[in-house]
């Protein structure tokens, strides 16, 4: 019984753990973009990938003592917000024209 807490106390969370988690999260997002056909869910999967990259940036910012990583995450957040606004605008235009559109129907928007 006494071995388990000391073993747990000996484990330290290093940056490899965070980077591995970021890699897994990125993979889930990428597979989601490839598999799903609902454009809204594809957007959410892109957000997953952006979050994985953000996690990686913050991890490197801490392990390399460089605040530039955190600044990049800030910019990624801003650009993600802008991207979602424009992307959802396009989706509204698409779905208004054809309800239940999938990613294959984006060609509908061609002038």
């Amino acid at each position, binding site marked *: 019984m006494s071995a388990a807490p000391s073993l747990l106390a000996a484990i330290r969370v290093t940056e490899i*753990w965070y980077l*591995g988690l970021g890699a897994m999260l990125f993979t889930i997002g990428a597979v989601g973009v490839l598999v799903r056909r609902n454009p809204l*869910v594809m*957007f959410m999967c892109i957000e997953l990938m952006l979050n994985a990259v953000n996690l990686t940036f913050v991890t490197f910012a*801490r392990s390399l003592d460089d605040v530039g990583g955190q600044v990049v995450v*800030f910019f990624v957040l801003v650009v*993600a917000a802008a991207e979602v606004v*424009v992307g959802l605008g396009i989706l509204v235009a698409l779905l208004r024209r054809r309800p239940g559109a999938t990613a294959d129907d984006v060609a509908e928007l061609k002038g």
Partner: protein
Amino acid sequence: MVDVVVFVLAGAAILCSAAGVVVAGNPVHSALSLVATLFGVAVLFVAQDAHFLAAVQIIVYAGAIVVLFLFVIMLLGVDKVESLETDPIAGQRPAAAVVGVVLLGASLLTLMLTGRDNHSPGIATGVHSVTGPLPDSPSGNLRTLARSLFTDYLYAFEITSILLVIAVVGAVVLARRTRKDEEVPQ
């Protein structure tokens, strides 16, 4: 000890809810799973002393972006459950699985090849910063971030404000209903 528990709990929450985003048939469920993922990532931000980014993550992502997703879902009534049983394009899912395995394998292999000692530059790490360690206290960390943002990255910061204005104008133009559209029977 505490950091291991926090990491394991937050990591499990992140991975499970990220899988939920992908496999949920209903887009509303996907959006809610996305919120859980974002909260887990915010917890890991706090665990790595990025308190400001954790707050911004909650406010901007969970507060604004996911609400925007839900608005679009509700406005357009696209919250129908999508059947995930069938594979619409033959071979799409096996191909996606192969891509996922290759992607995960490549990134984990890169991590394995990196030295465990973070002071020696490995493949996946950069060079250690010359500016010294980041301050441990939240306020000191925030001060360092703000100073960097408003000195080194000032032009980028100003350009993002222009980007946001362009995005707002673009969204208004895209979502506007013109008179010609209204004559078309919906």
